[in-house]
Structure formats: structure tokens, C-alpha cells
């Protein structure tokens, strides 16, 4: 028997009803890739939340050395071309008998008011058990006064020698228009598999 308050089911079958938000971090949308050209969030981004968190889990590339990118839209997803200024650095460790490490800024992966995609993870491998995961936070995308800051951190197994590559990205979308769509793509080929979840934080 359900527990209903004011016409809304709160509890049923021994659990909180799935329609009830639990805590300030609320799952809005889950997109699942299946040989997808992109994963695009074109609804659910509004002034309801001042912080949006995207968690990408086990993204698997269809094409070797593909890189994971993100871009933003101010017209609901018709165009993903918002100007961005950003920085990118990485920490990497190569195992598999060829031990080496790297910690470096990547000028080729930054943007200076560029409208193209922003790289957030480098060179994926297509091996069956390889993938990339991470988190991107976008602050107050609906604000129409300020630029929109974002930060990202993730890890991927690179194509070469099972390298663990951690990427750190920070920047701002240099627009005072509201961002209302976010798109994730690979630099080449499809997103073979994986999911991206978008949360709003109250």
C-alpha cells in the first residue's frame, strides 16, 4: 500500500517512490551510447539548478585514438559553437613494461575563445576492456549576466601501452547567453558504448 500525500505517492512497495527527488543532487537525464555519433543533452538545463554535473561512465570509442570532446549550445542544440577559453593539463603513467610518466600542460588541447569542441579526455583505446570515465561540472548555465565556468577531471586508458591518462580541464564559456544544451562527441568515430548522466544540484 502506498503512502500518498496531497495526491503524490511518497512511499510504495518498501521504497521511496521513484518520482520523489532524494537530496539536492538530482538525476535529470541518462543517455546511453550505442554506436552513437554524439550524446546530447537538449532538455532539462534551466535556472532550476545553479550547478550541473555530468558523469561519463565507461565510454568506449569505436575508433582508436579518438578523443572525448564537449561543446555547449545557446539555441537548444541547433548549434554547438559557444566561444570558450580553457586550460588543459594531464598526468600520465605508462605501464606494461615500458615504465614512464608525464605531467604537462597541453597547449594543443586548450581553447582561446575558440568555438570548436573542448577536449576533456585524450586518445582512447578500442580494446574491449578499455574505457574512459570522469566528471564535468558546469556552473549556473542559465545565468544571463556572467560567463559560465566549467571544470572537468577524468581518466582514460590510452591506446598505447595501457597508459593511464588523467586529464584536468578548466575554463569558461565566454557568453552571457543561457546555455541550454550540452553535447559530447569523439574526435573521430562513434561513441561505441557507455553512459553519461546529467545531475542538477539544488
Amino acid at each position, binding site marked *: 500500500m502506498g503512502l500518498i500525500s496531497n495526491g503524490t505517492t511518497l512511499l510504495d512497495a518498501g521504497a521511496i517512490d521513484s518520482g520523489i527527488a532524494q537530496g*539536492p543532487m538530482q538525476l535529470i537525464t541518462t543517455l546511453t551510447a550505442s554506436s552513437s555519433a554524439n550524446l546530447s543533452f537538449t532538455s532539462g538545463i534551466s535556472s532550476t539548478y545553479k550547478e550541473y554535473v555530468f558523469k561519463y561512465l565507461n565510454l568506449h570509442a569505436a575508433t582508436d585514438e579518438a578523443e572525448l570532446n564537449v561543446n555547449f549550445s545557446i539555441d537548444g542544440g541547433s548549434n554547438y559553437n559557444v566561444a570558450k577559453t580553457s*586550460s588543459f593539463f594531464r598526468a600520465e603513467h605508462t605501464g606494461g613494461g615500458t615504465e614512464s610518466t608525464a605531467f604537462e600542460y597541453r597547449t594543443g588541447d586548450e581553447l*582561446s575563445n575558440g568555438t570548436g569542441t573542448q577536449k576533456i579526455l585524450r586518445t582512447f583505446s578500442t580494446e574491449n576492456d578499455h574505457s574512459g570515465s570522469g566528471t564535468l561540472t558546469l*556552473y549556473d548555465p542559465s545565468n544571463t549576466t556572467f560567463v559560465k565556468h566549467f571544470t572537468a577531471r577524468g581518466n582514460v586508458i590510452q591506446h598505447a601501452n595501457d597508459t593511464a591518462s588523467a586529464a584536468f580541464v*578548466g575554463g569558461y564559456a565566454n557568453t552571457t547567453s543561457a546555455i541550454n544544451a550540452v553535447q559530447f562527441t569523439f574526435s573521430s568515430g562513434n561513441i561505441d558504448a557507455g553512459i553519461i548522466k546529467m545531475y542538477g544540484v539544488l
Partner: protein
Amino acid sequence: MAILSNAVEMADAGSFSVSLGDQVLIKELNTSGGAVANMTFHHGASSVVLDDTYPFYKFVFSNMHPAGNAVFWLFQANAVDASGFNEQITSSTFRAVNPENSSNGQVDYIASIDQSNGTGFQNICSDGDIKTDGDSCISGELLLFDPSNTTYIKHFMARTNHMVNNSQSSDNHIAGYFNTTAALDEFQFKFNSGNIDSGTIKLYGIKGAAN
């Protein structure tokens, strides 16, 4: 009709009255009433919880915009019953920065704003001062570990991003500890000069195993 349990209202009008989930919004401070000199969260004041209720606390600041030019975003703490916001801090900071008008970014350790048992406010926006243009601001978060513990020092980690005065993006990473075994229950955020013209800070408690 409200649903009560042990005199606590659990639900009413089609929604839960108690917090659900592992991250609980405790308090929001903003500038809806106008510019302010600082934003201060003190346990027991204005419904703020900053004690052993939660093992982790997170501050999220959105679009903090300074009234003055070329300023830095700072924070400090007070131990219980203390004042002055002058706890000892040892910290490290690095940042990645890249300008809008050219492509020559870099990542560096910033020795000028770390502290070695310093008692000043901790800079959490790196060495690049915040641009005061109408669309410029700083956003980010600060995670605080077990501030009410009276055995250990108190760790913190912050990550912010802001527009530097010469139109650069600065991705700032700051971590450190308050070098005290006293419980901390008051935290203050401010710019080093001038008011907070606009912005929002939210304080969350994050439940641990004991919760």
C-alpha cells in the same frame, strides 16, 4: 495532512519535509539583499550546521562577482568560541591558465599564495586577480573534512575557475590543512578588498558511514 514521526514532520503537501539522499543542503547565502562584505557560516546561527552531524562539508560558490577591481577570493575559519579568523593553515596551490587572445597556456605551482602555518585568509583563486568586468566572476567548490574532529588537523581541498584580470581562464587547485586539533565551526569567504557585489554560496553536509 502532515506525517509526523516522533514529533518530527516527515512529509506534507506531497513532498518530504526531511532531507533525503547523502548530500544535504544546509544553507544558502546570496546577495539578493545587496552587496555584502563577506559571507560567513557559523554553526548554530541562522540554521547553519557545522559540527559532527556530517563528516564532510562542501561549499559551492556560483558567480562570485567583486565590487572592486583586481581582487582575490579568500576563506578562513574560527575554532569554536574563537574569533578573528586566524587559524594556522599550511597549504599548496597550483593552477592552469590560458588567455583568451592567444594560445600559450601553462600549469604552475604558485608559491606566492601557499601558506606555511600562516594565519591569513587562504587565497582560493591563485595568483591571477579577478577581473571586474560585468560578465566576470569566480565559481567552484571547497570540500572540508571532519571540521569538528578534536584529535586531528582539518584537511580541505578546493577547485575553482575564474576569469583573470587580463582575460585569462584560471583553473585553480588548492589543498591544505588547518593546523589545529580544535573543532572548527565558523567559516568566512570574502574578497581581499571591497564587497561581494553578487554571488551565491551553498553549504552542503555529506553523510558518512556513521550517518
